[in-house]
């Protein structure tokens, strides 16, 4: 992990993504700093997931630029972005169902390992050592996220909450500089949410930047250092949780009109 003390590690400038005539993301400026938990909220369809998809290379932006580690990123494959050090989880869990839990996490280390086809076929010492190392790291991160249970079972056998944290472990093993969590708390019960919040804080302490899309306000207000609010693809507010809770535009976006005082 590179250290960017206090400076933004990831910045978007006037970033836009248009689908046909519809702007899913429009002129968004956002700056992500390491060591902070950055919340990204907004009503359904406000462009939060699209923003992450554009930043992580799933979509190419219609306009604007993305600066990562002081470098303006060219249009490139999502796998290349991941190798650069930005990694994500998904709104609906996307584990590799037929692989075991530990293999799922080991896939996350793919771009940090090097064994080529010929050494693998010959099963050289280097390959065996790398494999052992990756397995140990996978065990470490599974332990870090608090996964309990059989790591050898297939991912399709897991319940909802364990699936989510295995996904987080799979993202963390690549030692990313920025990690995006897309609605990590969705579908969790209050107890699981508490565990998740505690986990997110620990991830924030690792020194990398954490960006979380979340609908659960308890989670967002509880742990975020800074929150950006999107509505209809544009950023309508940014600030600390208390600032956001009292922001008029935000309340209007969520409730329609400002009747309630926070």
């Amino acid at each position, binding site marked *: 992990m590179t250290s960017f003390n206090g400076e933004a590690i990831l910045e978007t400038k006037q970033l836009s993504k248009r689908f046909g005539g519809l702007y899913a993301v429009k002129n968004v400026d956002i700056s992500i700093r390491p060591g902070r938990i950055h919340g990204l909220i907004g009503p359904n369809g406000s462009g939060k997931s699209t923003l992450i998809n554009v930043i992580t290379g*799933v979509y190419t932006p219609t306009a604007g630029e993305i600066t990562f580690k002081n470098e303006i990123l060219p249009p490139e494959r999502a796998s290349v972005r991941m190798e650069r050090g930005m990694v*994500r989880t998904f709104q609906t869990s996307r584990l*590799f169902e037929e*692989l075991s839990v*530990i293999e799922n996490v*080991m*896939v996350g280390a793919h771009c940090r390992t090097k*064994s080529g086809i010929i050494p*693998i076929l010959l099963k050289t010492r280097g390959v065996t050592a790398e494999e052992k190392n990756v397995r140990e790291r996978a065990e470490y991160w599974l332990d870090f996220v608090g996964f309990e249970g059989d790591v050898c079972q297939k991912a399709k056998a897991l319940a909802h909450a364990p699936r989510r944290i295995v996904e987080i472990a799979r993202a963390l093993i690549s030692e990313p500089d920025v990690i995006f969590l897309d609605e990590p708390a969705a579908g969790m019960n209050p107890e699981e949410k508490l565990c998740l919040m505690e986990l997110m804080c620990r991830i924030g302490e690792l020194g990398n930047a954490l960006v979380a899309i979340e609908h659960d306000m308890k989670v967002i207000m509880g742990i975020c250092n800074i929150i950006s609010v999107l509505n209809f693809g544009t950023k309508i507010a940014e600030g600390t949780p208390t600032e956001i809770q009292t922001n008029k535009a935000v309340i209007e976006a969520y409730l329609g009109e400002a009747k309630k005082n926070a």
Partner: protein
Amino acid sequence: MLKKILMWGSLALVAIVFPYAVSSYTLYLINLSGVYVILVIGLNYVFGFTGQISLAHAGFWGLGAYTSALLTTRFGFSFLGGLVISGLIGMAAGLLVGLPSLKLKGFYLAISTYAVGGIINLVLNNWSSVTRGADGIPGIPPPQIGSWVANTGMKKYYLMLVFVILVVVAFDRLKKSRIGRGLQALGDNEFAAESMGINTYVYKLIAFSASAICAAIAGSLFAHLIGYTSPDNFTSAESITLFCMLLLGGVRSTLGPVIGSVLLVLLPEFMRFLDEYCMLIYGICVVILAIWAPEGIMGFIGNRIARRQVAKNVMLSSQKSGVSECD
């Protein structure tokens, strides 16, 4: 550890003594099923791992067989030389056919690869000046390595055994490596695989070329085993048979293709005394397997073992907690 040595030792012993115990015709069938094992393992890379449907497989097989046949009968190449060049041509063909898979999915990919298989077959049938058309190429010499000539069924058996073991071990090592995990991740969830740093374009092409190399090598061995190749052997119907073998044995498993191929080559032969009822019973067997073991024979066994493992782990977890090796 001792248990493992005993198991592999006895398996090796059976494999070595086996040809002495069966008739020469059965041995011929076993050798033939060796060819199918290599073919189906190849299919396992592309269909088992990445979930891409390739019906061009019989085409690659034919390509390998004809390359070897022509090189050895016309240009005086040695058996191994022809085999290596077949493999390389197979790889090139696999890459070429893999290209549409970057854009096409599911049935559309199935249809386009089916067409490729059909085209290869048509070329073999009609490019008479090179392939001798429907007459096929006779007089392919038996496999020869140095001064050792595999001219009897038994010698061919040992040769096939070596090749099958090489291909199976290669598959197993790849499967348990970062590349194998990448391929399987791609098959399970392409979007997530790409986001986890796996270049899905490259990996699809790896899968297609690995699969075509296997098919071409199988073709080369087939040509030298039978001594004769004709376009009839490499029709698209064969591609479907290969899918049956893979599904029967167990998709993604290492031993599944071995079991599926041997069963589907031997079963019809052993039921030949039933005459016209043979295909009926064969069909019923396939249906029964499809209902009771939809994940194939190895999948069925794997589930059983997993269930027992879970029960065992539940019992053990009260005593100690620790991470154990999988498998």
